[in-house]
């Protein structure tokens, strides 16, 4: 069972990830370094939900800065189900019916993964359609606030509330509303089954995706295998950008103005070093080192800038597929179950698993986990994802 980090409102209906600020309530993004940090303002998405009459039930736990797989490094301990498998706090709360929905930050696929494993829905909308104002920043160029809910219909309802132009976010797109579909128009749709990603998954995950594709065909959807040769390059590129941007974004945490300060220091340098040493976990430190290296003078062109060029190529490849297909189907993760893993492997596992989730973060296209698998769609074509998911849910796919 997932934990609330903070009890805010007993009558609340929405959980908000701890990477999203709620005014006056401790928001620590799953990290000790933000211990005691009470934001001066709520995230734009939270404001919009509250303005529409939803109450925030509490903060759902995340791993430090949302970087890990499923909250296994959450400050209060990993979120496990009765069998000892990792679930992800927000997805578990939704699955258990404790909240109507949850807002999550998708920066490395964690909420998509969690939804796929808990059998609920999560949609990461097109980059720029939902305000990032009030999100604890990590991988700014690809992170988005999305919605976890039990059904595609519920996702659509919450998405309508939070999406739309926000003048406080310079990357916010100008439109005030977006088309989130109506649950119809599914027969005749064309879906591409991404070979590289399906092949990389475990046998039971492969079987799950194949079965899902089969049920889609039953709804009159054409499913064809497609190739995305740059999938592996997309993974590397996003890992690199994620590390670089995170390294830069967390460098403001110094133990001086807010958050955790080590009690053990004799001078300002020790204050900085000890606060960070004690305040950040193993995974974040690894991310910082990789990111710092990728941005360093000798490496910028060969690493960071190359990743930006790969981003462009992947975008072109994905766009090419969307000329022929309404959506791309693939696994959201390699396995159907995760158990807490050894710290030493954490970094590797997180970066390997991003193979399945990186493309939407890298290119900004929308992605939705539903029925234990995930689909991508073209920029601003959330309607395709929601319509498909809704039809599949109606067909008893769950």
């Amino acid at each position: 069972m997932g934990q609330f980090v903070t009890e805010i409102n007993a009558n609340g209906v929405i959980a908000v990830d701890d990477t999203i600020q709620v005014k006056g309530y401790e928001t620590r993004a799953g990290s000790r370094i933000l211990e005691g940090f009470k934001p001066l303002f709520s995230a734009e998405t939270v404001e919009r939900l509250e303005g529409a009459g939803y109450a925030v039930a509490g903060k759902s736990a995340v791993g430090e800065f949302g970087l890990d797989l499923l909250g296994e490094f959450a400050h209060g301990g990993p979120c496990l189900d009765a069998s000892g498998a990792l679930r992800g706090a927000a997805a578990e709360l939704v699955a258990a019916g404790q909240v109507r929905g949850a807002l999550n930050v998708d920066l490395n696929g964690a909420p998509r993964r969690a939804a796929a494993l808990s059998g609920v829905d999560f949609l990461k909308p097109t980059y720029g359609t939902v305000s990032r104002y009030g999100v604890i920043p990590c991988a700014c160029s690809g992170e988005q606030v999305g919605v976890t809910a039990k059904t595609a219909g519920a996702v659509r309802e919450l998405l309508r509330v939070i999406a739309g132009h926000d003048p406080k976010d310079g990357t916010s797109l100008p439109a005030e509303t977006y088309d989130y579909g109506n649950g119809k128009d599914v027969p005749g749709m064309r879906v591409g089954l991404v070979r590289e990603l399906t092949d990389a998954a475990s046998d039971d995950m492969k079987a799950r995706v194949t079965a899902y594709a089969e049920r889609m065909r039953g709804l009159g959807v054409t499913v064809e295998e497609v190739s995305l040769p740059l999938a592996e390059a997309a993974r590397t590129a996003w890992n690199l950008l994620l590390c670089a941007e995170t390294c830069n974004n967390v460098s403001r945490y110094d133990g001086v103005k807010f958050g955790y300060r080590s009690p053990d220091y004799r001078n300002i340098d020790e204050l900085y070093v000890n606060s960070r040493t004690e305040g950040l976990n193993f995974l974040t430190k690894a991310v910082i080192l990789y990111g710092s290296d990728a941005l360093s003078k000798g490496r910028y062109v060969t690493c960071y800038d190359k990743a930006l060029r790969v981003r462009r190529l992947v975008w072109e490849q994905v766009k090419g597929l969307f000329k022929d297909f309404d959506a791309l189907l693939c696994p959201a993760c390699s396995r159907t179950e995760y158990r807490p893993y050894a710290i030493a492997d954490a970094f590797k596992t997180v970066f390997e698993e991003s193979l399945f989730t990186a493309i939407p973060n890298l290119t900004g296209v929308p992605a939705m986990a539903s029925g234990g698998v995930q689909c991508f769609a073209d920029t601003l074509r959330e309607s395709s994802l929601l319509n498909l998911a809704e039809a599949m849910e109606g067909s008893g796919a769950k």
Partner: protein
Amino acid sequence: MSERWETVIGLEVHVELSTKSKIFCACSTEFGGRPNTHCCPVCMGLPGTLPVLNRKVLEYAVRAGLALHCDIDRETRFDRKNYFYPDLPKAYQISQLYRPIARNGYVDIGAKRIRIHEMHMEEDAGKLIHSEYEHETYPDYNRAGVPLLEIVSEPDFRDSAEVLAYLEKIRSLFTYLGISDCKMQEGSMRADVNLSVRRAGETALGTRTETKNINSLRAIEHAIESERSRQIHILSGGGAVVQETRHWNDDLKTSTAMRSKENAPDYRYFPEPDLPVIFIGEDFLQAARDSLPEFAEERQARFVEQYALPPKDAARLTVRRETAELFEAVVSRGAEARHVANWLIVHVPHVLKTLSENAEDIAPDPSELAELIRRTESGTVSRADGLRVLEALLSTDGPFRVSDYIRERGLSVNNDESALEEVIRRVIEANPKAVNEYRSGKTKAIGFLIGQAMKDLQGKATPATVRERMEAALET
């Protein structure tokens, strides 16, 4: 024997833009203010905040780029410059490295052309106030996020005179554009000096140093002189100049090494993901071109032509846009151009000096100034009184009507014609010797008579009027 050396200087000039609000948030940019009162979560770098570009800054930057004859990048963008220091709340500065707004420009100083390598937009950092008594430092983030332009020149300067002329030129261009007040003493214009020396005739550049923390034009002169002699001294002794950053201490008139090239920080620049690429459209660019004012040089030429002013006077009147505009405003209100020029070039600066005021801080009402100049020059107010009124007009006592002021204080010259005649008649009667001298051809004697009359009139008539009347009276 002494060798001949050539100094090679490049400048990095930072100019604070005078927009009302900061570059990425709505906070005030006003100078001064109690520490940390012009701040918000955005410029304090709190997590969850996002920068949103102030359009005014872009507009100012484009106009500045055009004034410096630069190419404007139609797809400009921001980068993050990483450095960890308490004056920088986000631990990175939003600046421009890869796609600066402007490149490849120039500034002409006299016959010499100084090439501009690039000019970019960035945010200012905060200020650290070090306690003198305790080992404590207090950060003040009022300045954090104030918009800056950094103008990087090519190493085209050969002496400090060229550097000063260049800074004056930039100050003139930018004040004419109305985008900065360029006050070095308030830090709204700062310059870092890159300097190397080489033996006369050599073409390769010597190893350069960068001197920072130079806060006045005089300091720049001193810093250049000091660094030039330091390097020549090293090289003459067979040594080698170390590439390093040096810190100027203006009290000691000397610089000290801050960090060498090896310790130079790696700023790990990368494109700012929170700000989209800025596409500059033709309309925007054309509007910026159309908004360029008549700069000092063109205006100087026009003043010579239109107002028949000597070129030297026209040059002095057009150094600052405010002076030039005041000149034309006063002339348009009926004062004679050559008189106004004289007042603005001679009298106004003189009075300001007495008042220890800065020219930037005064803005006299042009109508009142025109009235004062007209009355003084036509002789209805004596020059001494006219200057007294000017002093009152320029001091910070608040606005007043010149005509009221003159009437209330009885400064108006005696217009009572009969009283003037009476005084002249009395003086002629009382000084027959001088009168005879004058009438017998020693016309210089009239000076004595005028002096006597002026004494009687207690300064309430102009010497010119008295002379005129006196001559007339002596002829009869």
